[in-house]
């Protein structure tokens, strides 16, 4: 019963934060609300026993992504202009998509079912053989680094590619800014 209460109150706060993000027009406030959303979702992840993921979500979601958002805000604008379209078509799209997703969940096993297909597959083998193969107490660590090492290598290359992309997009920002006025003058004369 207590589980359900904690679950529901966390969900209420998450949904309220989500609606606040929809309504808010000051982007600074939106950024702060994104941080709040990340912290709340980290709390929910702890109740789902995913402590490592909660840790990462709190560090990455509330930390790094807030910093990135704030630095983008300083380079762009801080206010969202009022919308020009009516919200009816997006609401229709969202309602239809939501209905389809909920229809998809109807024949799923119950939450927390120990005999669900997700529980009896390869994960059980990892749990069984891990202590002999690796002798590490944290299962998430040894699966991430060893059994699923190629995933992690791919992830690293994705992060590297994104980093190179960001550097190529942003580099020379100050140089272009300095050059821009002179180029405009050239066009005028």
């Amino acid at each position, binding site marked *: 019963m207590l589980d359900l209460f904690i*679950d529901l109150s966390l*969900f209420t706060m998450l*949904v309220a934060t989500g609606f606040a993000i*929809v309504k808010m027009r000051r*982007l600074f406030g*939106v950024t702060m609300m994104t941080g709040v*959303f990340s912290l709340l*979702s980290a709390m929910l992840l702890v109740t*789902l*026993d*995913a*402590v*490592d*993921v909660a840790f990462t*979500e709190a560090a990455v*979601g509330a930390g790094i992504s807030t910093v*990135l*958002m704030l630095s*983008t*805000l300083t*380079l*762009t*604008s801080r206010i*969202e202009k009022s919308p*020009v*379209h009516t*919200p009816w078509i*997006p*609401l229709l799209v*969202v309602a239809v998509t*939501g209905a389809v*997703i909920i229809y998809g969940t109807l024949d*799923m096993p*119950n*939450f*927390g079912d120990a005999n669900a297909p*997700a*529980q009896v597959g390869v*994960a059980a083998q*990892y*749990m069984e053989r891990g*202590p002999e193969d690796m*002798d590490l*107490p*944290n*299962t*998430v660590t040894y699966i*991430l680094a060893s059994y*699923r090492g190629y*995933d992690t290598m791919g*992830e690293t290359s*994705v*992060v590297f*590619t994104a*980093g190179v*992309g*960001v550097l190529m*997009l*942003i580099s020379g*920002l100050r140089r272009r800014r300095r050059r821009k006025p002179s180029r405009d003058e050239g066009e005028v004369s």
Partner: protein
Amino acid sequence: MPEIEYILGHLNYWLFTVLMMTGLYIVVAKGNLIKKIVGLNLFQSAVFMFYISLGKITGGTAPIFPLDMRIDPATVYTNPLPHVLILTGIVVGIATTSLGLALIVRIREEYNTIEEDEILGIEKELVAQENRTLGDAMGGRA
């Protein structure tokens, strides 16, 4: 009562769907590019939590063994595989977010706005201007 059990067992999934749809609504309905990225992040977080909740076992605990590695066979551990996949997912998510934000900075530099409809208006104007120039170069209306 099997009905109540079914509803309680699926309530989490439906609530995650509500969160996902909030994110999707922001992506579709809002014109501001930064707001769109925030919406994508919201959607993504909801999918992550949904995925983690598939691995949860009732009465289970976090999948960390005792330090002396004497594992009690009676202890139920939650499935760690979704946690591993979502850890990868979170990091890839922040990489795509940062790339999107860098693109927004560049767009703002070129168009001096980050509102979608204003950018589309400027693009239309540019294309019309180019067509006029090309038409004049070929002598008469294109």
